[in-house]
């Protein structure tokens, strides 16, 4: 269909007219961010009416394709682009109470990342770390840098990466050719230009993927993925994820709430409690095998999904975007961070119906410790759907 045909069809379907036009020309401006999960400090909905949001809610200030979102436990930062420039806006716990405020020191920034006490902001030629919990924002660290040809996202910066505590700058060997870095609670997962994955940090829960529980100070190749070209990596509290160029999802680390999509004993016990068996001493099926720690990468199979394109990890949950624009979540769900309108955890990847039923195509996902932030655009109604309005 060419542009004119689309317009003609759009005109005959008044409900979709605007959508068609906008989709054809300016998809980016229709991109919105949604959030769900822990809202105890108003990081999702400004008025902290409830501390758990279990279905996606529109983030009123975060829209546009340039908008980047990052989350900590108690707050959320969005890099907002307007005609007058870009800046970071923070929602959540700030200076002793819940609120929503822009960080004036971030004018002109290209990227930002938020943690409990700091916001790290990168600009074209420098990166800064600001402490934002005191009465006045305080610059605790900064570094001038060569503007790199490659556009790398925080925490990567030219020459290394940044963490919100001393020493703020950690150098990385140039030979690694890092293109992406994910920092978990106590480990790191790095992706190189050639599609190889390195990990380092604490190995106590198998999160390094080397097949044992020993911690490593130096970056080490995840050998089990050797030969598979990886396109994206993510790190959560104690688990790790990587997406291959072919759309396969591999995960390793702690599975205590089913965050690896493997059978979890606690999830099973939660199910049993919910069913309230008459016989309190009901024995579990002895053949049930539960996995607490997975020290080698394991393939995550989601039925009816052929391709994963993005993955993000919270402290104990995981979210993944498929090639067809669907969002699946699994793991710990007590704060609604799975977006299934429930507080139950699950060890089986489940579709977040909200986006599908609101005709939205998910583009990206980012996690705070106990929440999930999703960017989505209105979906072009497919030929499978009925085109008459409701």
């Amino acid at each position, binding site marked *: 269909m060419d542009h004119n045909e689309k317009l003609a069809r759009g005109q005959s379907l008044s409900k979709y007219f605007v959508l068609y036009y906008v989709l054809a020309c300016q998809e980016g401006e229709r991109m919105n961010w949604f959030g769900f999960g822990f809202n*105890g*400090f108003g990081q999702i909905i400004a008025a902290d009416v409830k*501390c*758990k949001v279990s279905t996606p809610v529109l983030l009123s200030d975060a829209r546009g394709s340039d908008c980047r979102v990052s989350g900590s*436990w*108690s*707050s959320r930062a969005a890099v907002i682009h307007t005609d007058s420039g870009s800046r970071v806006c923070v929602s959540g*716990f700030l200076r*002793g*109470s819940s609120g929503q405020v822009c960080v004036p020191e971030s004018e002109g920034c290209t990227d930002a990342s938020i943690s*409990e*006490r700091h916001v790290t902001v990168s600009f074209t030629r420098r990166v800064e770390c600001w402490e934002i*919990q005191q009465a006045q924002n305080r610059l605790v660290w900064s570094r001038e840098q060569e503007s790199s040809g490659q556009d790398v996202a925080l925490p990567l910066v030219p020459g290394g990466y940044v963490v919100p505590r001393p020493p703020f700058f950690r150098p990385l060997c140039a030979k690694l050719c890092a293109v992406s870095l994910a920092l978990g*609670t*106590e480990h790191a997962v790095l992706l190189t230009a050639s599609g190889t994955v390195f990990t380092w940090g*604490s190995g*106590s829960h198998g999160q390094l993927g080397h097949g044992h529980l020993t911690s490593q100070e130096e970056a080490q190749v995840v050998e089990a993925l050797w030969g598979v070209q990886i396109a994206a990596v993510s790190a959560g*509290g*104690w688990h790790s994820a990587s997406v291959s160029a072919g759309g396969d999802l591999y995960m390793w680390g702690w599975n205590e709430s089913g965050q690896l999509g493997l059978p979890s004993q606690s999830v099973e016990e939660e199910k049993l409690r919910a069913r309230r068996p008459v016989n309190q*001493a009901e*024995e579990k099926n*002895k053949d049930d095998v539960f996995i*607490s720690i997975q020290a080698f990468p394991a393939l995550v199979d989601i039925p009816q999904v052929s391709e994963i394109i993005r993955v993000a990890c919270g*402290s*104990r949950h995981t979210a993944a975007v498929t090639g067809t624009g669907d969002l699946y979540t699994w793991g710990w769900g*007590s704060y609604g961070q799975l977006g299934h309108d429930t507080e139950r955890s699950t060890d089986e990847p489940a579709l977040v119906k909200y986006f599908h039923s609101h005709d939205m195509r998910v583009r990206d996902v980012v996690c705070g*410790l*106990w929440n999930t932030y999703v960017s989505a655009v209105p979906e072009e109604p497919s030929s499978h759907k009925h085109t008459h309005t409701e």
Partner: protein
Amino acid sequence: MFFSLYTISLLNQKSIDLLNFLPPLAQMWTEVRTILPSTMDDFIIEFSEKIEPSVLKVLELARDQLYSRPDCPSSAETAQIIIDYSWENLNTGTWRDVDKEWRRMYSYGCLFKVLSLCNGDPSQAKVKEAIKTCDMGLLMGAAIMDNILQRLVCILKNTMKLKSTKVEKSEEPCSKKMKWECVSEPVINPARAVPRIQCPSLERFRSDFLDPQKPTIIEGIINHWPAFTEHPWSIDYLRSVAGCRTVPIEVGSKYTDEEWSQKLITVNEFIDGYILGTEEKGVGYLAQHQLFDQIPELKEDIRIPDYCCLGEGEEDDITINAWFGPGGTVSPLHQDPQQNFLAQVVGRKYIRLYSPEVTENLYPHDSQLLHNTSQVEVENPDLVKFPEFPKASYEECVLQPGDVLFIPVQHWHYVRSLELSFSVSFWWS
């Protein structure tokens, strides 16, 4: 009618003395109230800079809610946020490195959860959950407010006693058969028997056993324990004193196994499932747990052996562990970094001892985690993998109720229970 008056009166008021507005049913709440600081200003919260201001805010909110709206429905939720966040921090780093501040925070979370459960006239199920929550705070947290969780659990236990009018299914005495293990009864070779001695003097013990670091079984020094006299330890007694308390249980035949794991269950559940219960649950062992810190009532039944004063350390530094399980529990051959008195109270144990001098024949694990543990299965050694093992000389014994085994520091020891057994170990320096 009483509850609605109670609620309305408390809205928008701080620092109120709750005793004036209590409905007659909330007896337990009265008791609980007396151990809390009387006003909000007296409830002091102090944490180091390491604790993020965000979670501190939640803690302050919980405290404020307690004094202004104790029956607020969201108080349980607020408490759970503190518990969940501090739990994640407890799991960061190795247990030894965990900042004590996070353990204190976890205890505060448990405290507020318990208080939200206790409000009004809670059901027996809620009281049970409150006891379990106190135990989680005692096991994984650190003492706060003059060990308030310990005092709370006493009040809750007394309430449980009053509330349970009918005997629960799990308390039916002796209707379940004890697990009869086909345990092999070892025959002690007299040439290798650990020597026995009756009530030695302090000097005698020091010169003959402590200084030369020789294992010995001391007889006649614990028979006066209340655990043998006033409150003879039995399954029924343990149920009555500690039945509803949550304890850590090791599941799996030994800690070197891949299948080995730990779980937190009540003493009643442990007795029902692993001592009296069916075979299918596998071996369960309440092992190496400082039960007597958790349940002071049981501490009254034992005494620290006098010989511990021969050491250099303080009495407060002596670690007292409980070892309670069915027949067939195995502690693989290992060594400990302190002197040990192993007191046998119930049942018998087969114990084998190897001197540190023969360590090279015992094939300790390479890993840092298990370097104090031998790879050899003492009663079923793989002589192809461990050919030097038979060269190692050893002593052995069957420890009987009333015996105390002296295990010198770094002395290798292997322990297998022959029947239902309860031992108490004293680690001292």
